[in-house]
């Protein structure tokens, strides 16, 4: 059973995000990290770069897979989790405490899912 945390928003690409005003904190869900297997590398975006919603913003790689992370909302990168450069396995250990990047000046999107909707979505994937 995939772990899902209530109170966060999710995307169909298995990212989670926490929105506070015009800032968003983004990571990958438990389903994503367990599908990837042992994560070996995280390609982080560059601070101050701007992205539109659904644009490829980061990459998470395991030995046998490479998963693109798409920006769930449009915005400007304000912070990246440098710890993931040396310790990508943190995402396997706890994907919800370890964010990947933060965005500021965001524009919220319509198709974000709440925890229940994401739970339902995951059921359709099996």
């Amino acid at each position: 059973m995939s772990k899902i945390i209530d109170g966060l928003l999710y995307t169909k690409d298995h990212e989670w995000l926490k929105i506070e005003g015009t800032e968003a904190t983004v990571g990958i869900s438990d389903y994503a990290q367990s599908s990837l297997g042992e994560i070996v590398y995280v390609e982080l975006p560059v601070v101050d770069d701007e992205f539109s919603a659904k644009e490829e913003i980061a990459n998470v790689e395991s030995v046998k897979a490479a998963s693109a992370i798409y920006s769930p909302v449009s915005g400007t990168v304000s912070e990246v989790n440098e710890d993931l450069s040396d310790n990508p396995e943190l995402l396997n250990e706890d994907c919800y405490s370890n964010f990947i990047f933060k965005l500021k000046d965001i524009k919220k999107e319509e198709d974000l899912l709440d925890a229940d909707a994401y739970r339902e979505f995951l059921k359709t994937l099996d």
Partner: protein
Amino acid sequence: MTNEKLLINKSVKGRNAYNFPPLDVKPAKALNEKLKRLDEAILPEVSELDLVRHFSKLSTMAFGVDFGFYPLGSCTMKYNPKVNERLTSFDGFTNIHPLQDEDTVQGCLKIYYEMIKDLCEISGMDWGTLQPCAGAHGEYTGLKIIRSYFMDKNEPQRNIILIPESAHGTNPASAHMNGFDIRIVKSNERGLVDLEDLKKNLKSDVAGIMLTNPNTLGLFEVDILKISKLVHQAGGLLYYDGANMNAIMGKARPRDMGFDVVHFNLHKTFSTPHGGGGPGSGPVLFVDKLKKFVPVPDVIFENGRYSLDWEKEDSLGKVSSFYGNFLVIVKAYAYILSMGCDGLKSASEHAVLNANYMRVKLMQKYKVAYDRICMHEFVLSLQDLKNSTGVSALDISKSLLDRGYHPPTMYFPMIVHEALMFEPTETESLQVMDECCNVILDLYEKAKANPEELKKAPFKTVIGRVDEVLAARNPVLKG
């Protein structure tokens, strides 16, 4: 047995493995200080015997077709005829510079010309190029021809390439390198292209479709004439990935199926050795209307002379520094000469015979992904075995290593779970296949009886399973 030390760690300062004839002219003036190298690069210092022992030893820690059965699906690991090695050692080939005057390289140019003609006959196409150095390189070139065609016709909106979900990874990558986006066409329950899904995808933005026939499941696309008609009607072109050509030489031709561009893998179908991953060669053949886009230089034959034609206004340009992997082409040319029209046909017939034989034998215990006559390769799905014992396709493959066989291709195509793809090729005998099948069937029983042991295999090889996670997390890429 353990791994060898790196040769650099066997070095002894001052040791020497080669000496040159003494310099017979005065030494060059020193190079300008600003340009001089700042240090001495660290390279081995060994004797010739050290060198020979080191690399000879390394060559034994390898598995070649010369050593044992290699049923790798999609790779066509057939026997590499020794005569071809002999032919490419002639100094009439090795001592030739690519920019010599044309009248001094008529032999090379004739081989190029005749080879293109032979490949045209085998594929049904009108002309070709031997410049690409590998299959993926051929795909890149062939797709560039398609791109050039639509730019020339002023249809730049055609920027989509359709590929089936079972396609090899190089297909979408090659499309992307040419600035195309891709759309996936689904397979039907028979494992073939779903015609209804194809029709849905044939919009006016489609430049073409990349297919291999038989497909990566080893199944022949029986609807290929319908497919090619639909694509042409929609204004697109068809690209044939020739990786699976070993199934149909002399039995069917891509041109007759409706394809417009084809690439072949000389290191698969045409017996040239794999060399640990190259050199290969990926000739591209095409229909008449695409001839003008051929990479330069083209090879022509006029008034009894062969020459290189550099003046091709609409050429797509160059994909290699020179003309392609000449020595590899010589080997394949010799293979075609030696087999001839009858031999090539027989090769495909026996490749298909062998694959069906192994399929039927292994079906005694294993589940085949598609239970019907296959072509030169077939795919097993070990999902049921994994569910019941925990033993995966990987574990069975690793156990085969202990039995002296190279495993089949694992986890490809991605549409089959726990896939193992077998391609015996025509150069393997009944006896070899029987022994191998018996081992694989035995492994099935072992998986049921003692799954934990198979999960730890191999045991008899120089090293056990490697820590790939460590290798990718903390890469150590040089000594």
